[in-house]
């Protein structure tokens, strides 16, 4: 049976996260069999044929002028049409800001189970087993699906893109669906870019986060300089977000974002359990803290005990000299 993959695009460009979902689909297709079929909602073709190199056998294009922006009701209707056309065993959606809104709607419309924000997805003994991080990563819930199609949204950075099949092209086919103007719908009326144009902490390869050890919002310049030298995005602990030093979108932890970058650098963060929950699936963790007993050192791969006001500038300077 087929695996249907939602291909996310923004402003006419396929988002890199689409490749993570295709990566999961290609691996599962090895066990489940069946083609990997993409479905994309867009105002016009964002270059879908190229997804052949990322393992898509074909891609259905639901095009409508309203799809220049996210249209939850319209996207859901289009995906439901794709589900009816392809009869997939599994529908994969990235757990992005858009995907987290869309995947539950698809599940409600198809009346099937959604495993949201999965960190792993395997075919075991003839059934699909999804692993979800719960309690912000303090535990993992393994679930299976009672009905077809199974729907899973995939946490960013947890699924590797597929090996590139150079030169392969996916067939792009128009998808017939009904865009019902009578449905009351939420409409996107505008966008604003975040200051600095940095990647969101959930998407960044490297994240440098600052905590109360910085003593004041003005000292976040140290964290920003280090992040700059590393090509990283800046995160923050709950304490400093609650104190109003940083916007809530920067918060990493149980009441903020869960991140899994390649490298996570915690600066002046003691490591409250609710913060650790949000970052402990990072591949490599570095902690800089003056308190050798700080809980952050229990999850850190590498630590420096010391005054961050000396260590961080030294680290930034050393990185700039060697790059």
């Amino acid at each position: 049976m087929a695996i249907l993959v939602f291909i996310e695009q923004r402003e006419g460009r396929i988002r890199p996260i689409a490749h993570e979902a295709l990566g999961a689909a290609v691996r599962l297709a090895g066990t489940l069999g069946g083609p990997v079929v993409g479905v994309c909602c867009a105002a016009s073709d964002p270059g879908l044929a190229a997804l052949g190199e990322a393992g898509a056998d074909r891609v259905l294009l639901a095009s409508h002028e309203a799809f220049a922006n996210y249209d939850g009701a319209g996207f859901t209707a289009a995906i439901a049409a794709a589900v009816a056309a392809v009869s997939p065993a599994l529908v994969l959606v990235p757990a992005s800001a858009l995907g987290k809104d869309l995947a539950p709607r698809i599940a409600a419309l198809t009346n099937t189970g959604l495993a949201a924000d999965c960190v792993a997805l395997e075919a075991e003994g003839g059934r699909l087993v999804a692993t979800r991080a719960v309690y912000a990563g303090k535990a993992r819930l393994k679930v299976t699906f009672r009905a077809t199609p199974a729907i899973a949204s995939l946490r960013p950075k947890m699924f590797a893109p597929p090996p590139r099949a150079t030169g392969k092209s996916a067939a792009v086919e128009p998808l017939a669906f009904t865009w019902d103007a009578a449905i009351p719908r939420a409409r996107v009326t505008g966008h604003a870019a975040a200051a600095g144009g940095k990647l969101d902490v959930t998407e960044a390869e490297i994240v440098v986060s600052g905590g109360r050890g910085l003593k004041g919002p003005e000292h976040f310049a140290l964290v920003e300089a280090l992040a700059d030298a590393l090509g990283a995005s800046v995160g923050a602990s709950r304490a400093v977000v609650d104190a109003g030093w940083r916007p809530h979108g920067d918060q990493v932890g149980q009441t903020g974002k869960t991140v899994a970058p390649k490298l996570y650098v915690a600066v002046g963060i003691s490591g409250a359990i609710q913060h650790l929950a949000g970052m402990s699936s990072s591949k490599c963790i570095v902690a800089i803290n003056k308190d050798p007993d700080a809980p952050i050192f229990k999850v850190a791969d590498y630590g420096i005990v010391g005054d961050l006001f000396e260590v961080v500038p030294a680290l930034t300077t050393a990185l700039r000299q060697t790059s």
Partner: protein
Amino acid sequence: MLQIVCIKQVPDTETRVKVAPDGRSLEPAGVTWILNPYDEFAVEGALQLKEKLGAGEVVVISLGAAGVATTLRSALAMGADRAIHLKTDAVALDSLAVARSLAAAIRPLSPGLIWLGKTAVDDDSASVGPMLATLLGLPCATAISKFELDGAVARVEREIEGGSERVELPTPCVVTTDKGLNQPRYASLKGIMAAKKKPIDEPIAEPGQPGLEVLALELPPPRAAGRIVGEGAGAVPELLRVLRDEAKVI
């Protein structure tokens, strides 16, 4: 206007998770239960709107066993007018079963606005809001950090990767709330006393069949012990060496 706020009782965020003997659920012994932090923004949003409009009613609704009543009382103490406790002893209900239960209870009430927290910090699915909207055929905006009602149109802002998105939706509609939307109030002593007298209806929930089956709840594999590479700025060269040569992350 009638506003509904869907709330959930969750373990305190400082809880150390232990797995119950069934291997599939949280060991409840020793857990402190709180109102889901994101739901506080939803309750506050509804109360502020009611105050601004100077009219209407705020009804909080929650699904669960007997213990959920204390969380409903805390929302009543914040200022909600009345509560609905959708009673069920079923455990391992997935988001779809919860959304179905809520939809069945809410549909006959024809609310103008339905508020939920963007996610519950226990299950972390962030799914019930958009599922409920879909089941009720209502427009929906998730994870909003700004809200304004202009006649019959809600204008909201939500964070997306790398920025934010402005969204307009006609009422009746569903919104789920993110941190930053407002500063939830503390219940006053007067509010707490008044909450004791506010009515809580107790209909039986109709969740239907969940879409998921829970196989296991497990603790994540522990991280291998790390090491302190040194003290002070003098340890920087060694840190850079291990990041390049051992971890290969820079």
